[in-house]
């Protein structure tokens, strides 16, 4: 169904148009949107199933959905089938029952493909260009790296999706973020997205879908693109897209649930059409120069409170939110970011725990040791990532350097399991949110790339990874 936005359509508008079941407002701005896939987790899905049961409704297309246990499980190396606490056990038990009763495939904690939902879905080949994928987790925007429209939904919408395979959806505005030029030595995709969030603010893309384009984006691997799309929600974007290219097709080919044979050829032919038209209208455009981006870290309690590692902490004069953030973080305006000492280092999360992330961190750690007084952990994004890292010997690099080599899961990104910061502990973290208490009540989080976390772990303080000759 046509958006009525003229002949030059954006990739976002094409994806929405291709999934309109019904126009609900006569303007095609609010539509009944068909959803191709979803992934469920144990903590945002239970109340949706309870309501389905109460209303005696069934799941429209169970095979379109995968369930993955990832938020509440242990990441201990010797973990078993049981959750660390009774409440988590209740959630996973109910999740297993719901999946079985409604015919949904589920990867429990001991399944060989278990991992963080947004790492597992692409590994399975379940994320493909042109798809609409909605899931009960805000970082569903990750799938934009494949040219799929992914967005987070709440539990009521999960219920709506399960029962109808659709959502009542309001079309977003289009924003293009062009990243021109090339990244400098030691600068990675995490730094691009952190620089963007700092530039436009934590709500700078609210109401928009962002399409990322430009030389620096094209040059990135698909995994690096996933980091960017993943964190686009931290500036408010409810969708992030990168036009799919040969790198994306290669990343899907041969995956367990990817099309093959004749269907693969048909799919590729369609996927090659998925890009914004020449002259397509964007409501807002932001241009970044990749060569000017430095390794980034956050100093505050919102992802937009970030700065290049070479900077100092900004003044809070007249800035109530800055003053509040600095008080929580126990930091002073004017201090150098590289003077901030840490007690914890964490590599993990759906943002940065894929194999490339682990390789980059390991490159910094090879032949080095974690500083005395720092507890460092790595929780691979999935069991498959963990196996791959072990096959490459990365686990030994982490262990020799003094990192804990853990099992996969969301872990200390949001600390719903037993991986938590103690009050006052300061952590260099490859995750996506530095909110108050996010990694544990009173805990203090500094966001950065995995290689920057490794560098901070070695030095015991926030550090410019470019000082390490290996680069990334």
């Amino acid at each position, binding site marked *: 169904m046509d958006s009525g936005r003229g002949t030059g359509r954006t990739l976002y508008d094409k994806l929405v148009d291709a999934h309109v079941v019904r126009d609900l407002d006569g303007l095609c701005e609010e539509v*009944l949107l*068909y959803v191709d896939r979803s992934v469920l987790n144990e903590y945002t899905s239970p109340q949706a199933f309870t309501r389905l049961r109460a209303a005696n*409704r069934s799941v429209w297309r169970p095979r379109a959905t995968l369930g993955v246990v990832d938020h509440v499980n242990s990441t201990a190396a010797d973990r078993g089938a049981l959750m660390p606490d009774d409440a988590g056990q209740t959630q996973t038990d109910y999740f297993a029952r719901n999946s079985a009763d409604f015919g949904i495939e589920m990867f429990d904690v001991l399944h060989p493909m278990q991992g963080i939902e947004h790492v597992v879905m692409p590994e399975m080949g379940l994320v493909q260009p042109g798809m609409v994928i909605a899931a009960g987790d805000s970082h569903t925007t990750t799938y934009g790296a494949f040219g799929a429209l992914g967005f987070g939904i709440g539990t009521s919408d999960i219920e*709506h999706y399960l029962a109808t395979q659709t959502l009542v959806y309001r079309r977003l505005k289009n924003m293009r973020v062009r990243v021109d030029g090339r990244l400098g030595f030691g600068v990675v995709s995490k730094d691009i997205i952190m620089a963007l969030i700092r530039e436009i603010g934590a709500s700078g893309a609210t109401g928009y879908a962002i399409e990322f384009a430009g030389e620096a984006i094209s040059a990135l691997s698909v995994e690096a693109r996933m980091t960017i799309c993943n964190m686009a929600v931290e500036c408010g974007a409810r969708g992030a897209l990168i036009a799919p290219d040969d790198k994306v097709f290669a990343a899907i080919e041969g995956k367990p649930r990817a099309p093959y044979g004749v269907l693969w050829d048909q799919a590729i032919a369609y996927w090659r059409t998925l890009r914004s038209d020449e002259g397509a209208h964007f409501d807002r455009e932001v241009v970044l120069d990749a060569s000017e981006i430095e390794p980034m870290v956050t100093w505050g309690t919102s992802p937009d409170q970030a700065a290049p590692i070479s900077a100092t902490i900004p003044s809070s004069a007249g800035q109530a939110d800055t003053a509040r953030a600095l008080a929580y973080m126990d930091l002073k305006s004017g201090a150098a970011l590289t003077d901030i000492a840490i007690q914890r280092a964490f590599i993990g999360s759906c943002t940065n725990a894929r194999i490339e992330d682990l390789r980059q961190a390991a490159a910094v750690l090879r032949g080095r040791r974690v500083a005395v007084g720092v507890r460092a952990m790595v929780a691979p994004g999935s069991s498959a990532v963990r196996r791959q890292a072990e096959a490459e010997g990365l686990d030994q690099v982490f262990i020799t350097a003094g990192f804990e080599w853990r099992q996969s899961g969301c872990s200390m990104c*949001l600390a719903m399991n037993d991986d938590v910061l103690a009050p006052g502990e300061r952590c260099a973290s490859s995750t996506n*949110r530095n909110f108050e208490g996010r990694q544990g009540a009173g805990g203090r989080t500094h966001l950065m790339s995995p290689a920057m976390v490794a560098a901070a772990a070695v030095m015991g303080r926030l550090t410019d990874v470019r000082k390490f000759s290996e680069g990334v």
Partner: protein
Amino acid sequence: MSFEPFIVRKGLAAALPAANVDTDVIMPKQFLKGIDRVGLDRGLFHGLRYDSAGASVSDFVFNDPRWRAPRFLVVGPNFGCGSSREHAVWGLMQAGVSALIGTSFAGIFFDNCARNGLLAICAAPEQVKAILACAADGPISMTIDLQAQTIVTRDVRAHFDIEPSRKQALMSGLDAVGVTLEHCDAIAAFEAQHFAQHPWIKP
């Protein structure tokens, strides 16, 4: 019907003007371990209501005896950012909050509000400023008329905009799944055509 329709409501409004109040703050992680929706009012703003020793923080709005349970909250920009957890909305409603007034809300949170019957009003910055100014000294009595799209206090009378479909949904309180299932033939027809055009997509 899936929630109580919102027509006209009256009550005390309290101010929570900080920017970027995220859903981790609204409903901390330790309250997300249930499989039902009960008891979330206890978790609401838990880290702001209680200090690390568990004592009540007296100057936080939800602890101030003048409000006790504010019906409306006037909030800062980008309220509800972060995690998709709908528990944040359930907790607000269980604590008696019926409407939020702010300049901007994060997308998933905004939708979660509408799906549950919590009215989130995107007001103009000067309107929010004016309401905050009268709420600064203490509780203010407020009437929100969704039909007329007005916010009225002793000192402020403001009109607000809302998408017609959202207004209708809030005023009707209808079960959204039930409404959509009336289109089940259209969904089935769409699927057939979608899978014919893109056969590799069929799961």
